[in-house]
């Protein structure tokens, strides 16, 4: 850990100003502090925003406005989330561990860094940590790594469960800039793909602070979050599926899907959803959708199993969500 300056922001304007001048925002600190101890991140100053009034969950335009400082535990326990956005509650509770969820915040969860083994070990080449140094994961151990959206410079995955459910729910990220103005950003557009610059992970500009996540009015139909992992708890997703499906008159009327553990960001593929809509909820439909999803997969030796695993998990999830309708 390198010495750093600590600032406690008294208000949002102070926080954005400090952030713009090189400060790194800290809230729960569950990821940042670990990375600072490892010197994977060496911020010269951190800006503590935990005193800001961003910990509320309020109704907004039929949906919910979730303050950036709402903890994962509080969000998962919120009665409205449990009732109207069960996929989100399930995703939150499948992540990390109880103590971590008590500290981790909504904004921090979105901005957590990859758990790629090579990113978190400073002896290894990593274009994300040290641009231009190379990607040691390529040709290395790739069990955790991406099958979608990666590049020749980085194959890391985004580790969040929460973000996958939020992406499926068409959440919007509310960002406040140094000018005090707020803007909305579809959650899926928050993240950059690695391409030639894996060190650039989001579209946020210096000084931008995520102040809330807005969930639109709950969609109809059934929703779920299914996470597949190496042990029953406290493990990152090998693959995960967030899904909402509405069946009407024997056909799929609406479909929203997002996938975790497989890409540098919560992965959406509109072609998969389009394939489902209008079709009967039968096995052939699910297989066709899975074919479209997996057609774009690029695997390595260590993560090739993710293709059949994701295919099976998607088919089973769709089957479960449409179960009473497929007779």
């Amino acid at each position: 850990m390198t010495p750093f300056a600590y600032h406690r922001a008294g208000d949002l304007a102070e926080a954005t100003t400090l952030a713009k001048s090189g400060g790194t925002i800290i809230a729960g600190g569950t990821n940042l502090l670990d990375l600072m101890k490892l010197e994977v991140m060496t911020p010269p100053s951190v800006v503590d925003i935990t005193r800001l009034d961003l910990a509320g969950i309020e109704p907004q335009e039929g949906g919910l406005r979730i303050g950036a400082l709402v903890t994962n535990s509080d969000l998962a326990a919120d009665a409205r989330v449990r009732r109207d956005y069960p996929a989100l509650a399930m995703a939150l509770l499948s992540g990390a561990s109880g103590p971590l969820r008590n500290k981790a915040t909504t904004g921090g969860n979105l901005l957590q860094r990859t758990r790629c083994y090579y990113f978190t070990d400073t002896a290894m080449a990593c274009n994300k940590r040290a641009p231009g140094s190379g990607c040691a994961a390529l040709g290395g151990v790739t069990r955790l790594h991406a099958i979608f959206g990666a590049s020749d410079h980085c194959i890391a995955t985004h580790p969040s469960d929460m973000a996958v459910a939020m992406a499926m729910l068409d959440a919007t990220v509310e960002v406040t800039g140094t000018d005090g103005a707020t803007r909305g950003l579809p959650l899926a557009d928050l993240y950059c793909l690695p391409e030639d610059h894996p060190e650039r992970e989001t579209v946020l500009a210096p000084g931008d602070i995520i102040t809330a996540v807005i969930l639109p009015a709950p969609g109809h139909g059934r929703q779920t979050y299914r996470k597949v992992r190496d042990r029953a708890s406290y493990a990152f997703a090998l693959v995960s599926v967030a899904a909402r499906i509405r069946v009407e008159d024997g056909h799929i009327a609406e479909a929203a899907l997002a996938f975790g553990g497989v890409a540098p960001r919560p992965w959406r593929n509109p072609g998969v959803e389009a394939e489902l809509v209008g079709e009967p909820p039968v096995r052939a439909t699910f297989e066709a959708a899975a074919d479209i999803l997996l057609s774009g997969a690029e695997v390595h030796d260590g993560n090739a199993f993710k293709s059949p695993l994701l295919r099976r998990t998607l088919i089973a999830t769709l089957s479960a969500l449409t179960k009473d309708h497929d007779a």
Partner: protein
Amino acid sequence: MTAHMKMDEPDRRNRLDAMVQGIVGTPMDRPDGPKKVTGTATYAHDGQPAGVLYGVLVRATTARGTLDDLGATEVKALPGVRGVFHGKRFLRNPAQGTAGKAPVQGSADIYYFGQPVALVVAETFEQARHGAQTILLKISAGDAETDPDRVKPETPAKKQSEVGDLDAAMASAAFAVDRTYSTPGHNSAAMEPHAAIAQWTDGAVTVHASCQMLRFNVKELADSLGVAESKVHLLSPFIGGGFGSKLGISPETVAAALAARELGAPVAVALSRPQVFEATMRRSETEQRIRLAAGQDGRLTGIGHEVLVSNLPDEEFSEPVTQATPFLYRGENRVIGHNIARVNRTCAGSVRAPGEAVGVTMLEVAMDELATAAGIDPVELRRRNIPETVPTKDTPFSSHMLEAALDDGAKAFGWADRPKPHTATDGEWLLGCGMSSAARVNMIMQSAARVTLNPDGSAVIETDMTDIGTGSYAILTQIAAEMLGLSPDRVEARLGDSSFPKASGSGGSVGAASSGSSVFLACEAIRETLATTLGVSEADLTLKDGHAIAGNTRKALPEILAGEPITAEGEIEPGKTAKAVKQATYGAFFAEVGVNRVTGEVRVRRMHGSFAAGRILNKKTARSQCLGGMTFGIGMALTEELVHDLRDGHIVNHNLAEYHIPVNADVPQLTVNLLEERDPWASPIQAKGIGELGICGAGAAILNAIFDASGVRVRDLPATLDRILPGLPDV
């Protein structure tokens, strides 16, 4: 006064059973429990003296090479940094268990990725850590071999054996199994990282460290430092788990002592979790070819067990995979093969029941394959193959409780009522049951303890025995309380101080029987003295509740002692009973698992173990040992694996987020039955070791249950979902 016993004859007196205090065997709470749960137990890195400096080890970032220059100039100029240390006394790796001398030393020659090559010492931990992270080592890389499969292995003659003609037995067998299995490397994953605080006074060093076997560790530390053994005082009163990784002195302890001597100040060094993975012991990965030849009735005519393990050059230890194979099952034609690949990986040493943990587990999977092939119930197959003597020899067993454990376990689990294979389901989950035998060799080691009966009728035990979370404080207290007729709260056990009489230490499951016997012998001597004082024979003396009863009189101990303490030292050492009979502990595991037919995920739904290990000294701590072993078995079967990047040999998953030990959600209701037994050949307290028995074969019950549930036979561990998926039908 010293009472010494060499275990040359069985001790059938069962003296503990003749005592009347009624404490031994009861599930007494640990006397050290309140200290642990209130945070007042002082572990190695606690209790830091005034003026302590902090050291952090620097890792080599190559698998083989030479350290040309530390590149420490800039680090030495960092704020707070007091020195950077390295040199020929640095340990390459920890000492092996019971080595009693320094391991390979020298920080210039790099043999594995993660080898500690320097120590940065600073005024704060953060300063030292920053220095260690930013030091610019100049290394000339050499040729490394990181893959045991690409090395021509050593095949030491004394580790090979062949009896009869196994090839012929295989050719003529009614049923045969010939399979190759593999297990990955494991880390001990003790909760407390390795740590030490060293301080010198007048040429002598006092070290607080986390060590399992002080009598050996003092020698190892002295030899490493180049000082006399008398100049080393080692303290390990509390140890947050060891599982073999703290058997020998490890690099941080020597580095702390070297730096403290140089700086004239106490130095504390704790390993980070990645350093525990990289720079302490790993269990070697294994490849195991197992051959079983059986007749129509399932009786074995031959067993072959040939293995490949790995270690660094110049290490004598190699994972004793086949340790239980020569005696577990019958068969007149036998082959044992042992091959060692020398690789540039973290040192291999004792981790959680070296040998049987992986060897019995895979042998028990092979036995399940044989049961399937022969159409014989797996429990019955094992029952038919229990040998009368050590196979191909006349050596009798000291006791043999495998059949009793199989029967007890099968009954407790409801084995007879399980569903037919591949038939039971629960939603997406395919359900199945499996079982396996448990076996572990048993022995004692030389061990001494001093017991003082104070004039007030209280007693103190002093020995350098350690309690690594196993319950040594409890069982030694119980033995003394039983023998001296005292309430346990009148007995104080003082452990983990190298100035006390030298005990076995904790390792190889020898601690309870060895150190327990030494306390027993000391107490017997005290009883003799009391009896003499009272003018009766020791056998006629009854001690209970602080009183002596003899010859129709009852006197309080203080009255008899009349202001004078009685002190006795007891010492046990192994003798002819170690060779005259085969001593082992036995058990049986039963597990029910669910295999998710969509994802291949496996979850254990329930698990039972029945165990026999001679006299059980404390039902609670013994049961806890077994629960821990079975939990390790779940980890071994399903999740635990040291993953090496073969390009540079580094351990990729060197933390507890990615090295998957079972979490609470992975561990279902576990049940344990402890079988009543006295083994007079094992020790004068008729107890055997139970610490490791719970892991020795445990994983096989789970792996066999996976097959029973899904028809997928996993032969390469762990049974992660990617190894199950290809065998599952389409969704």
